């Protein structure tokens, strides 16, 4: 049923901290590893060892340079399904394969009824859905629906694979519909925001902005590197220059 639920009991989603993401791609590879054996399995890998390796991944990490000159900074930007409250990718689906779950707000594709028309990917402004040409159906982030409720896993593993894998703690998972949850508090404290709020898709996932620099001296100004003594020609000077170079490396 592609009509959206009026409300969902929970709003499960991710909070991504752009201040501390280092762009290591651990979340992306961990996502691929889990999901190629999970709900969306398998995720295609086309020409994996050839000249044009590509395939379906549910999480992509861009590296951006933001700003100019001394004020510029590098921001690593993970991008996956935001599990929107009013996702047009669901309402445009002609078959009912795309749906939003009433119990927790997760947006899923039923791989048994998807016809692979790709219209949902056109309707998504975030480029979050990837078509799997090997299987002729659309793939997307499932918020690891097969992990978070999985009682065969240890308690600490019942979180999305990307959150579990993140070595810097830049990814958080929880119920954004509950104002007292850790993720909601984090969003309130750090002024977490929506991507493209103008479009009105009401994303559940939130992004935390990079923190402002503390001041000009701590972040960018490194102590000046000592210049090696110039070699001027005499044997003894050359010897000291050589020794200086050796000792300072």
């Amino acid at each position, binding site marked *: 049923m592609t009509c*959206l639920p009026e409300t969902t009991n929970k709003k499960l989603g991710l909070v991504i901290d752009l201040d501390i993401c280092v762009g290591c791609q651990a979340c992306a590879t961990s996502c691929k590893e889990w999901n190629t054996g999970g709900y969306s399995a398998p995720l295609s890998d086309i020409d994996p060892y050839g000249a044009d390796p*590509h395939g379906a991944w549910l999480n992509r990490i861009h*590296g951006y340079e933001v700003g100019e000159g001394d004020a510029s900074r590098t921001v690593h930007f993970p991008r996956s399904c935001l599990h929107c409250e009013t996702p047009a990718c*669901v309402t445009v689906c002609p078959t009912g394969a795309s749906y939003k779950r009433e119990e927790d707000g997760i947006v899923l594709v039923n791989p048994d*009824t*998807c*016809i692979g*028309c790709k219209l949902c990917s056109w309707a998504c402004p975030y480029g979050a859905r990837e078509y799997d040409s090997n299987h002729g159906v659309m793939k997307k982030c499932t918020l690891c629906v097969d992990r978070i409720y999985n009682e065969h896993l240890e308690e600490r593993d019942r979180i999305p694979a990307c959150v579990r894998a993140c070595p810097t703690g830049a990814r958080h998972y929880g119920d954004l519909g509950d104002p007292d949850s850790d993720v909601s508090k984090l969003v309130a404290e750090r002024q977490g925001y929506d991507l493209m709020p103008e479009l009105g898709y009401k994303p559940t996932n939130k992004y935390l902005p990079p923190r402002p620099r503390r001041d000009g001296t701590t972040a960018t100004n490194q102590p000046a590197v000592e210049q090696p003594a110039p070699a001027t020609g005499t044997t003894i000077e050359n010897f000291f220059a050589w020794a200086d170079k050796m000792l300072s490396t």
Partner: protein
Amino acid sequence: MHPAYSVIFFTTASGAGYGLLTWVAVATLARTAPTDWRFGLISLGLAFLLITGGLLSSTAHLGRPERAWRAMSQWRSSWLSREGVLAIATYVPAGLFGIAWVFFETTSGFISLLALLAALFAIATVYSTGMIYASLPTIKAWHQPWTVPVYIVLALASGGVLYLLIASFFDGANSWPLLLNALVLAAAFAIKRFYWQTLDTDHALPMRYAATGLEHLGRIRQIEPPHTQENFVMREMGYSIARKHAEKLRRLAMALMFAAPALCIVMMMVTGGFATTLLALIATAAMAVGLFTERWLFFAEARHISMVYYGQQAA
């Protein structure tokens, strides 16, 4: 947006089929269509052929064509589903209309009601096709008031030249069908011009939305793409045509869709017999190539907002 040939063929062929069906139905209601059962057979037969061929072609772009029947189910929310339902529903009045005409040689009374229904369903189907594109806020080129009128008026214009071609064999390509065709062509020309004008003024590039939320920090450049090779999103949404190529193709499409058929129609007003058929054939051929170019451009000129994440400029 990537121009998929199956979708281009579907929208142009089915559009022309629904346009032709509308012309035949309206001409029958107005009692000016040739009443010969053979005209009914050829004109409605060609409309069915175009519609069915187009619909079958559209399933070729599906990943799972064998599941296409499932697309009928979500008409409450999805324009694609509505299009499917209306496309199938059109067969009922149109089929009964054709059977009554060809086998029982009657087009009056209850049958004219069927003709009216067939025309209404045909237009509604083309309207749904247009709405599939017009309802997507992610593609600004399509999310504009002229997208749906373009689909409807081009279906009528292409169906119109087909009507003239078939009617010319039955001495029916004269007086008002010629005049009405000229009017439809003029309207189509104007509407497509408005579409392109809107595209050029502020719909060529996606809106400058807060895509990353970092926009207030300054200019954003992608220094590390997420992957080495193009992924599905880039292959599907990243297709775009250079502006100067687009302008050439626009002129070609305009000349073939409007100027050439209009010239043929003016000449048909003063000729008769075989010359009329020949002119109608030229008009149809020009319209077909022009329409195919127009539909290819419709996709190639449209830009998807998700590409801003890959460094594409926004307006």
